[in-house]
């Protein structure tokens, strides 16, 4: 059974992360550390308790620049297979406030007013816009400098590729 209201809804988060990692300016600052939902957690060996891989969120003196994208809302059109305004919270963490600002500005350059593109999974993005942001803050737990913003993505919720392609 197929149809625009039955097909699996496409999520643009993976595509946004892939686009961000492909952006040379952003990747030079982040080295691929752009995450969806939460920072990369620390990996610990369960038997020896040795740290196998340190996560993104570290304490003072060990900060790393990274971005966490959180889904704020994803209202869909009641009749058409499109999202009206999927919005993501963009948390840009930096080593310093200046570094966090650089990360935020690089992210803004990469996504603000970027027009139509089609992804390999058939997701059609009509456009992405930074709607607000730039306010400085510190993370409540690690005290790491952070700049927050909101990214709005207008996209299809089903594939725009012809069947069989």
């Amino acid at each position: 059974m197929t149809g625009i209201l039955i097909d699996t809804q496409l999520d643009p988060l993976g595509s946004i992360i892939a686009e961000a990692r492909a952006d040379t300016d952003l990747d030079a600052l982040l080295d691929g550390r752009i995450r969806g939902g939460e920072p990369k957690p620390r990996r610990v060996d369960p038997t020896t308790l040795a740290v196998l891989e340190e996560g993104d969120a570290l304490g003072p003196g060990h900060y790393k620049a990274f971005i966490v994208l959180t889904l704020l809302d994803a209202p869909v059109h009641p009749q058409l297979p499109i999202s009206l305004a999927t919005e993501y919270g963009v948390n840009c963490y930096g080593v310093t406030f200046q570094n966090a600002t650089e990360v935020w500005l690089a992210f803004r350059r990469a996504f603000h007013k970027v027009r139509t593109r089609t992804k390999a999974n058939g997701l059609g993005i009509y456009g992405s816009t930074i709607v607000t942001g730039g306010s400085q803050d510190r993370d409540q737990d690690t005290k790491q400098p952070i700049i927050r913003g909101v990214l709005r993505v207008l996209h299809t919720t089903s594939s725009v590729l012809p069947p069989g392609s």
Partner: protein
Amino acid sequence: MVDRRKVSRVKMNRKSIDNVRLAIADGTAAIGKAIILAADVPDAEPYGVGLVVEGGTLTYVGGKKVGSWHQSGEEPRKPKAMKVRGKDTIQTATGWSFPAHLLEFGTVRMGAQPFATPARNEVEPRAAGIMRQAAAYRIARTLRK
């Protein structure tokens, strides 16, 4: 073509303009109030129970505060980030106090629990109607005087 012979001085009816601006301000304040009432605020850890429950709105016309409303009945304080400026501006701030932004966007240890954006998106389609109703009330009251 403009008839240049009949030049008359235009007198601005400032009182009427002020009433129109106040009516628009009432409309924006009503939208803000609707967003606050539509929000389902998560009452979550780690900041304790009940810290982010009540929200409010503040409205400024031409840099002067013309209206405020808070669910607790208290007078809300202007957020530091809000810049009130300009003679011809109408500004309304709607929101919740600290740590609402941490719930909305999350922290490194706590996932985001957005409530403000969904509330805004819920009210957005009705915004014109809410504004019309609130503005009409102010205009009708002015005309009655």
